């Protein structure tokens, strides 16, 4: 039986709500509308309005309320419609959720899960196509994960809820129609994983770029590492792969300057420099607002051909 990435997300939500009475979902249009991307369709009917809670368009308010509800002993799942809108709530994430534990001397934990959609590729134009994973991954005190597979779309939520600290889960509308076999459900949110073994070059990526990297890998015999967890980073599989391939390309849909790719490259320099036979390359989003027109949007994003070209350049 195959299911879509969207159905895997819904399955994860349904299991989480059924498993623990403290869990509730809140966000814009998660209830009556059924979720902007139909992810939470049917959950209001199944779990009722207290546990599947529609919110007004108040990202700062309801994300902060999620922090408070977590302090108060619940296990909130707060859905922020897209990462673009999440900027309105960033204060509560950075100035409360992330630092309350450390700043209070370890007295409180904030078991909050924030789910949000990231990335471009659907011609939604500049204000609905951002990728801000790097900004979130910059902040100590939160954990940041990116679901790039059916298994992770299904299982990461449960793992995030089991974590006593705030976890931001990135989901990718570009992958919502992707199909695959559902796994057992349980996944970790601690490790990076090799998604395709290969010999010639290591491609490091996460999120919506994973299928593009896998496509490119067929042409260049790449080993593809899916970071999965963007904070704290698990570099071991990356470094292990580089010891074998001696070359690396980092693929990242955030803007190049200050990107997550920049951090990955820095760590490879720090920890794997002597294993390299060539400088580390990267393929990032072009540093422009993502345009509407399809050909321009495609040109602005990492694509399999760009990954292939970057990898081949390492051998010239």
């Amino acid at each position, binding site marked *: 039986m195959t299911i879509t990435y969207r159905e895997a997300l819904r399955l994860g939500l349904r299991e989480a709500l059924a498993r623990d009475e403290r869990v509730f979902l809140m966000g814009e249009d998660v209830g009556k509308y059924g979720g902007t991307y139909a992810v939470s369709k049917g959950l209001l009917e199944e779990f009722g309005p207290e546990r599947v809670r529609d919110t007004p368009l108040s990202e*700062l*308010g309801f994300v902060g309320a999620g922090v*408070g509800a977590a302090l108060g002993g619940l296990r909130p799942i707060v859905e922020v419609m897209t990462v673009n809108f999440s900027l309105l709530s960033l204060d509560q994430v950075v100035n409360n959720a992330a630092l*309350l*534990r450390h700043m*209070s001397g370890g*007295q*409180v*934990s904030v078991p909050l899960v924030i789910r949000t959609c990231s990335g471009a590729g659907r011609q939604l134009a500049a204000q609905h196509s951002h990728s801000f994973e790097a900004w979130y991954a910059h902040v100590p005190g939160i954990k940041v994960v990116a679901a790039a597979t059916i298994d992770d779309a299904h299982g990461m939520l449960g793992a995030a809820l089991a974590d006593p600290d705030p976890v931001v889960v990135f989901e990718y509308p570009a992958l919502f129609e992707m199909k695959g076999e559902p796994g057992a459900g349980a996944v970790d949110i601690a490790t990076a994983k090799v998604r395709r073994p290969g010999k010639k070059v290591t491609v490091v990526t996460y999120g919506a770029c994973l299928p593009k990297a896998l496509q490119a890998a067929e042409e260049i015999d790449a080993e593809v590492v899916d970071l999965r967890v963007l904070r704290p980073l698990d570099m071991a599989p990356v470094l292990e792969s580089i010891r074998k391939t001696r070359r690396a390309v980092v693929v990242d849909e955030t803007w190049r300057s200050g990107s997550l790719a920049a951090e990955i490259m820095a760590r490879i320099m720090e920890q794997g420099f002597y294993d390299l036979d060539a400088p580390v390359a990267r393929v990032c989003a072009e540093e422009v607002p993502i345009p509407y027109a399809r050909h321009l949007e495609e040109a602005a994003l990492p694509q399999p051909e760009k990954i292939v070209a970057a990898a081949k350049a390492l051998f010239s």
Partner: protein
Amino acid sequence: MSVQVAPPPSGPVPYPKELSLALLADMLRIRRLEEKCAALYGEGKIRGFLHLYIGEEAVATGCLRALAPEDNIVATYREHGHALLRGVPMGAIMAEMYGKREGCSHGRGGSMHLFDASRRFYGGNAIVGGGLPLAVGLGLAGKLKRESRLTACFFGEGAVAEGAFHESMNLAQLWRTPVVFFCENNFYAMGTALERSESQTDLGVKAAAYGMATLQADGMDVVAVHEAAKRACAYVRAQHAPIFVELRTYRFRAHSMFDPELYRDKREVEAWKTRGPLHTFSARLKAQGHLTEAEFLELDARAQREVDEAVAFAEAGTWEPVEDLAKDLYTP
């Protein structure tokens, strides 16, 4: 603001002597603690930002005594008094300001971030308005868990300009979360006077626009504050709905220790001092025979002893080892 102020709070205090003296003792404890903090700041023992509550003591005193021990409290960076009256030992507060490990936030937070989870005291929030969504969430948790506790959220009038305030008012009323929003209106957001920053200076109107019940009381009169706070808490518990309480008060000291106070007239400060919560309350109690000068001096001496012991405790405190810098970033 005009230098004309209302007459000082007056008339007999409608409480038994025991309660009156307890309220007076609470205000004195805050006052003496903070006077010492100011002195220690001058000596360099306390660093960073230090925001004193001097002049506003009636607000925390009247409100805190209306709360039950199981209620949650969310406060601001001007929260020494709230923490103290919640039961956080003065020594732990002082040690926190010293940055010592024995502080109530283990020296991680300082003056602006006093925490005590065991007493449900959730800070010490220094982003203006940032505590309000937190209070809505704490209230929501209590409601969904069918608990009887309410959440008391303190914030200054400067917060009403923030989006967080308006979003929180709407969410709290929409979801009927059991929260008392105590607005400590001291008329200045740092150095910006209310009428220079708000088109509507009647703050209750803003909460009422969201359908929320409102109250207003003289924040320089501990009796008026306490009565309003009791009514507010009773309303929240009975109606299962939030309420907004505006307490008009005045800060006698600068905003923080870095503030040269260029934005307000010295005569205005002097005029408000005639309404000072400590001396007006003491005078009323004396007039009705509930307080002698000897009793006042005894309460004052007791507060001073507590301060001395708190300073000794802080001085004797230890520094958290640097190796623990990253400890408690995540839950073990």
